[in-house]
């Protein structure tokens, strides 16, 4: 596959169904024109490359607002090189990387390092999420102003939720003036204790320590109240319980500035799937019950849950091969994102195809103020994902691009997947050669 230089190439995707959520009622067959890395209405001259889109669907590239790329510091699990390629394979053109790296993302130099590495080795857009507090310690505000100038899109202490309510209040208040949403991994760590899975029948059967749903809901509730107090922008990460969906729904009715995301595993699996002590089902928040899965689907359908993110969390096979209690939390997610959305939400009628796409494109772009992304409107950045709903495949371990092979979906058959990913007008991945094309954005 050819390599393009930005600003020089014209790409035409012919005869493709175009689904662009922000363009009302626009679901038509036509051509997508890309020039100078932007979407245009047509070319003045001939295309440099033509892609046949017959039978396929073009949508805006996915924006995954919750992922762990592990670089700097934990390159043994994932790097920007491998993580962005895994994203590209999953149709994700923009990745928000969480700040629990080593060192953490609480200084402009780390932000600059991530951008530098992405330019050099990455193949999709990477936007860092900065720490909400220095060193993820939950004590002092991070330098949000400087971090924003350096390019962060949100702040979060992610897996180290701020337990002190006064500190959380200050984080919300201070972030507000920069229009930086605060992403809350809502968990009362004291209540979770040493829990490793959802508390209930299955944790009792398995003799594993449980994490009650209330460990999440208590914090969702607190953070919504603090968002109400401060008028700040609160985004609830990876909603996993029916109670959290209700809390967000009520808050939205009261016009609190709160948005929410969930992840594919929370509308696909339950704690019944932990039965074999497989650490690839050990996730935080944990897999919950059937009633939670159903409530999350309702929350997605009625708009309570705005986004679908992956919480892509790669770990080594050695770490995940440990005893269930000792293995780290988290699973990879980029490469199964779309297929699970299609299987579990679209084919089952929970969401229309366009609604489902909006939760991975236009909604996150709007919430996190990403101008000119998440849409295929003229003048937007040419981040495009091409989907073939006829493409059927088995998700095989040896085909995983991420360094992490920790997925509970290995061996599952899917119908419908990503067949091409375009970032800034460049084809960065296509199914035909099933390899990542060489890519240099400079």
């Amino acid at each position, binding site marked *: 596959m050819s390599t393009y230089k930005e600003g020089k190439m014209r790409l035409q995707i012919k005869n493709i169904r175009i689904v662009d959520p922000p363009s009302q009622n626009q679901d038509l067959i036509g051509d997508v024109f890309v020039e100078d890395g932007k979407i245009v209405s047509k070319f003045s001259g001939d295309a440099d490359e033509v892609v046949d889109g017959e039978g396929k669907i073009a949508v805006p590239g996915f924006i995954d607002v919750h992922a762990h790329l592990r670089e700097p510091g934990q390159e043994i699990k994932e790097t920007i090189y491998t993580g962005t390629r895994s994203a590209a394979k999953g149709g994700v053109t923009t990745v928000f990387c969480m700040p629990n790296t080593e060192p953490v993302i609480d200084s402009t130099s780390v932000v600059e390092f991530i951008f530098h590495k992405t330019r050099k080795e990455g193949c999709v857009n990477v936007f860092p999420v900065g720490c909400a507090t220095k060193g993820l310690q939950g004590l002092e505000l991070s330098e949000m102003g400087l971090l924003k100038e350096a390019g962060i899109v949100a702040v979060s202490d992610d897996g180290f939720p701020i337990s002190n309510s006064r500190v959380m209040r200050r984080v919300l208040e201070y972030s507000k003036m920069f229009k930086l949403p605060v992403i809350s991994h809502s968990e009362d760590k004291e209540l979770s204790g040493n829990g490793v899975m959802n*508390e*209930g029948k299955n*944790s*009792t*059967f398995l*003799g594993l320590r*449980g994490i009650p749903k209330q460990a999440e809901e208590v914090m969702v509730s607190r953070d919504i109240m603090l968002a109400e107090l401060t008028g700040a922008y609160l985004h609830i990460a990876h909603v996993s319980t029916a109670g959290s969906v209700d809390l967000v729904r009520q808050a939205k009715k009261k016009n609190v500035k709160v948005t929410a995301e969930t992840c594919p595993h929370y509308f696909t699996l339950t704690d019944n799937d932990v039965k074999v002590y497989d650490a690839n089902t050990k996730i935080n928040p944990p897999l919950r019950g059937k009633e939670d899965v159903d409530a999350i689907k309702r929350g997605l359908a009625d708009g309570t849950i705005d986004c679908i993110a992956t919480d892509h969390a790669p770990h080594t096979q050695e770490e995940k091969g440990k*005893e*269930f209690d*000792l293995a780290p939390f988290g699973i990879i997610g980029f490469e199964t994102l779309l297929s699970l959305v299609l299987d579990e939400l679209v084919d089952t009628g929970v969401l229309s195809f366009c609604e489902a796409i909006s939760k991975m494109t236009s909604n996150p772009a709007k919430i996190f103020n990403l101008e000119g992304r998440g849409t295929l409107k003229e003048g937007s950045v040419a981040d495009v994902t091409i989907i073939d709903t006829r493409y059927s495949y088995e998700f095989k371990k040896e085909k995983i691009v991420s360094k992490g092979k920790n997925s509970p979906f290995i061996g599952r058959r899917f119908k419908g997947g990503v067949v091409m990913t375009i970032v800034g007008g460049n084809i960065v991945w296509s199914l035909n050669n099933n390899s990542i094309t060489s890519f240099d954005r400079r």
Partner: protein
Amino acid sequence: MSLKFKDLLGLEHLDKNDLQTILDSVKIFKGLFKKSNKTSTLRGKTVVTLFYEPSTRTRTSFEIAAKRLSADVVNIAVSGSSIIKGESLIDTGKTLEAMGADYIVIRHMLAGTPDMLARNLNISIINAGDGFHEHPTQGLLDLYTIYERKKRIEGLRVLLIGDILHSRVARSNIWALTKMGAEVLVLGPSTLIPASIEDLGVKVYHNLDEAIKKVDVLNILRVQFERQQENLFPSIREYISLYQLTKERLAMAKSGVLIMHPGPMNRGIEVTSEVVDAPNAAISEQIVNGVAVRMAVFCLLEHVV
């Protein structure tokens, strides 16, 4: 007689027929054991006991059972610290398999470790207690003790008293007894009752004086002092006042109520010495049955290797 699986990981996945098969053969093995004879059933086989938690009675019981069957026995006691050092359990298991072990009897403080070994090895894995999950041979020996004394299981009411939350003995007992048609009641402070335990088909009680009148069997679990430090009950004194099985409380029970304790006992805490030494206590019988049960399990498991 034999079972159609190579591992004994827990009683959850056994059915009534499996349990009856085991009960029937325990009787035979108990007879053999009482005669103090050795049989050559497992001659040439090697049993490794791999214990990550200290244990005297369970390990010794397995060892004696294996030796009575003429197996060679190797005991490995692993200190908790080697887990922290990152030694892989599967590697350890594979090493033992390569050395020719036919059975690994594993005791571990983490739930699911026997399953992990079984998934990765071809030899027989016997769970000798994993975390709060299961202790199947204890569940079987308790089942057999009741069967022997009461001549039946079906229709009996069995009360498990104490720390149900952290008890693998309780879980294995519940599976075995409910599958065989007994009614199981669990009793303890509400902080030591696990979530949704009713889904295992049991009834929950908190008042010993109320529950003791209803049952045919009392199985008293050991209460661990560190649970008080975890703030799960306020004091040993209060625990004793609410849950200790005393002579006075025993007087309220049905006559002939069977008293069991999986050991090791804290005399004077969960149970008084008078009760332990009462004629309807079967605590030393449990020990004898433990050896017979383990002999039966070694012989009944399907031999793959």
